[in-house]
């Protein structure tokens, strides 16, 4: 996974609260292998009619090259399905801006290089106004924790650990390998101090 410091891209407004992961990707598409791509399933049942045709007035269908999504409260709440993040990433989205996120979604996002940028509700409203009046370009700075639109800069909040991961493109398994000794010592001590924590009957 490649790290990144800044991103500039076309922003799309989807000012709806509670876009849960069931909507981001309906469950019936989740058995598809990732290599086949998940982009077409993003918000499938909101974007398409029952015949599979795109609704022409749905915001994401009006812009072909969006990479920044601005949405409402509790974006990505619900199921832990990482496929919701795959659908966004495979559709070209690099940043989601919202006043709040589902915890597991946000964690999944960072693990796939997608930024969950949390902003104040009043800034979300301001952002909506700014984006309505210009070309829709947003500039995101991970170092400065700022979103720039048409000369206006708005702050966003991101966990420090997550910011470091996004900037460096770190893989958690590689990071954890650096603690191999701590883990094996912990394992040994846990087995000795809490033998009851082992599943009885397991080999």
């Amino acid at each position, binding site marked *: 996974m490649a790290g990144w410091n800044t991103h500039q891209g076309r922003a799309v407004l989807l000012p*709806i*609260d*509670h876009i*849960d992961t*069931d*909507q981001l990707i*309906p*469950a*019936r598409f*989740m*058995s598809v*292998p*990732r290599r086949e791509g998940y982009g077409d399933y993003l918000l499938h*049942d909101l974007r398409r009619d*029952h015949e599979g045709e795109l609704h022409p007035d749905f915001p994401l269908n009006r812009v072909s090259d969006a990479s920044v999504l601005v949405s409402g*409260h*509790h974006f990505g*709440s*619900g*199921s*832990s*399905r*990482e*496929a919701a*993040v795959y659908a966004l990433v495979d559709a070209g989205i690099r940043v989601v801006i919202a006043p*709040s996120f*589902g*915890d*597991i979604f946000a*964690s*999944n996002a960072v*693990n*796939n290089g997608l930024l969950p940028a949390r902003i104040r*509700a009043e800034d979300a409203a301001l952002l909506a106004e700014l984006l309505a009046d210009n070309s829709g370009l947003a500039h995101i700075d991970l170092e400065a924790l700022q979103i720039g639109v048409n000369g206006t800069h708005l702050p966003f909040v991101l*966990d*420090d*650990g997550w910011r*470091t991961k996004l900037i460096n493109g770190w893989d*958690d*398994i590689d*990071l*954890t*390998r650096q*603690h191999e000794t*701590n*883990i094996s010592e*912990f*394992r040994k001590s*846990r087995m000795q101090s*809490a*033998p*009851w*924590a*082992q*599943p*009885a*009957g*397991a*080999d």
Partner: protein
Amino acid sequence: MNAPATLLDKIWSAHEIVRRPDGTSLLWVDRHLVHEGSHHAFAKLAEREEKVAEPSLTFCVVDHYAPTRGRNGPMTPQIATMIETLRENAAAHGLTLFDLDDPRQGIVHVIGPEQGLTLPGLLINCGDSHTSTHGAFGALAFGIGATEVAHVLSTQTIWQKKPAAMRITVDGPLGPGVTAKDIALNWIARLGTGGAQGHAVEYAGSTIADLSMEGRMTLCNLSIEGGARFGMVAPDETTITYLKGRPFTPKDDAWTEAVDVWQHLVSDDDAAFDREVFFKAHEIAPTVTWGTSPEQAVPIDSAIPDPSQLADTKADAARGALDYMGLTAGQPIAGTPIDEVFIGSCTNGRIEDLRAAGAVLAGRKAKVPGLVSPGSAMIKAQAEEEGLDRIFSEAGLEWASAGCSMCVAMNGDHVAPGKRCASSTNRNFRGRQGRGARTHLMSPAMVAAAAVTGAIADVRPLLMGRAA
């Protein structure tokens, strides 16, 4: 002298391997529960040519795609592939698998406790948001995504930032026909789906102490719907009685030692919580959802809210929800006609839930079709021994095999577009039970009441003179 500690503090510190300067901890995972959806994680492992670090702590089960109707008949190629992939991954890594024909098969959050894999004081992960269920035993249990599943598989650890501690205290006796499901829907309706975001919720108070393990599991299961990843109840005699003698629980000296440790798994009297909320049990009525989010719920004896009377932040969502649900603001929620019912899921597919539904359905006929899917094959067997299956069948409902079934509609069981379902499940999201499906969440007894009346109904009059 140690500083006063919460239950969260105690379990967290017992699992912390290292803590980074940014405050993120590397935690040891005692149990990793895996199902078909983990194919992405196993694919990541295969890419890296890695093996599962601790096969004896990793347990697999077929649940999300498990056919619950005609289990021995033909499956769609998609479902067959998902199940076969889990079998191949379990075999390749030497993992215990509760397969479709295993008498222990069932929904992962039902069989973990049932098999005694879930114990107080453990850290439990699963690639499923309702992993919070296991917190009912005083475990630290939370759902994770596929990348994290791959991480746990290959290292038996998880990176996690410690959440803030929140305590929800409920005191007093519950009214007749009022259940743990109603406690959960009630607090989520009052605090909102983000009400416990960033917090580990510990449930306390006399109402919680009086709940069965089944009820505590329902409550902890739904914690995620209020924004919390963790729901917890301190272990007590109810917990210990439930666990004793289950297949994977500690035996002999290890059991004695375990019980001794578990008795200390309680928040200290003077421990500080970042947030405290109090409820009175007698103020909680049977509760049902009217919208497309679990917070859009009302007591059965009240009206569907009028969006113009709601706060600005809730009004648009309410309008959208009413439109999707095909409901009119201001109407009483009771009397809303339904098309079908579903009883099951990791929230309310346990034996106590089936008994509660059976108490309402016994000797009555359902006015609409419906499916009853027990949470596990063992619950199915027990229900059949108790004659509950006959009650459901005689009422006109279909008695199925165990699995996630119509809760998440991944196994082919779904609600048709535009149809209204009274459901004992956990999510009323748009499309959750199938594209265009309209879901009303409620307790299993309330689902049974909806079945026999053909409409959303108060279960309490139907229980008069009957054992609840």
